[in-house]
């Protein structure tokens, strides 16, 4: 649905029909992404060394969301999912959703995530 980038004079549909892929971004995007990834990694390691933060309830969610952001950035920009055919997006996000749900279900089943009232 996002057609903000207008690299080509063809409409996306025409481009698809003609077999032309959306153009990939260039150096200017790539190095910025790399910097962001580095910064996030530094942040992750940094908080790891703050005992008070590690002990706090925010630790786990923070780390999980930081790595999720990294994951998403690489997939969207380096793997061009943001620019490529939406089919690829479906092929990746579908399995990713199944996989994530499975992970969470297993964590629950083995008692690593507990529901409100413990049994």
């Amino acid at each position, binding site marked *: 649905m996002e057609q903000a980038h207008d690299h080509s004079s063809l409409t996306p549909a025409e481009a698809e029909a003609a077999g032309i892929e959306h153009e990939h971004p260039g150096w200017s995007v790539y190095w910025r992404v790399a910097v962001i990834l580095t910064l996030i990694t530094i942040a992750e390691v940094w908080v790891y060394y703050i005992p008070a933060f590690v002990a706090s309830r925010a630790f786990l969610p923070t780390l999980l969301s930081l790595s999720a952001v990294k994951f998403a950035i690489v997939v969207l920009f*380096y793997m061009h999912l943001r620019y490529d055919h939406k089919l690829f997006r479906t092929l990746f996000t579908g399995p990713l959703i199944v996989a994530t749900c499975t992970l969470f279900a297993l964590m629950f089943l083995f008692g690593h995530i507990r529901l409100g009232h413990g049994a």
Partner: protein
Amino acid sequence: MSATVSHHYSSTGLENRKIAIWAFIGSECMLFVSLISTYLIYKGRSRVGPYPHTPWTDPSTGHVYKAILNIPVTSASTFILLMSSLAMVLALAAVENKGKPQRNLGERILGNSKLWLAMTALLGIGFLGFQAYEFTSFVNEGLTIKTNLFGSTFFTLTGFHGAHVTAGVIWILSMLAIDFKRGLGPSDALNVDIMALYWHFVDVIWVAIFTLVYLIR
């Protein structure tokens, strides 16, 4: 790796192999989720040490094992793998833009696919080097794949990932060889693209592993 596919009809205009690699990556998600889940399920369930984040004293020998994981080293290798992804997108861009005029030094550097492929491979090898160092030092510190649940799950998970990196490095080196032999051009972009997708995927898996295995306690 001939380009005969192109004169076949296709319903979406997309390349067969690119569809296949995305399906493959989707499948790999389940593979790694199984490995990661197992690691997390067994977290804290090892009956004997050494442990990842806390020291352990062997009750029978009195030997003290320190916490196994070495965060500074792994942070460095994580950084290296991230940078290899950067090198890889640049390699792909260089291959895609072969033949376009290169107006200045910067464009010439950016357009040098050999440089970026070699860089990616080197960084990949660097990552593997760190992993080899990590594995040997763990073994020296008393953790093997047979020691306890942590050892079994840790080595299997990171070993699986390492095997993926190894396969990727071989792939990249073969591509580099082709580049030296006959030069890669836009007609090879698909092959490089597929390789790049695989490589980035291996990278994002590490992103997850780094957090879930190394940082979370």
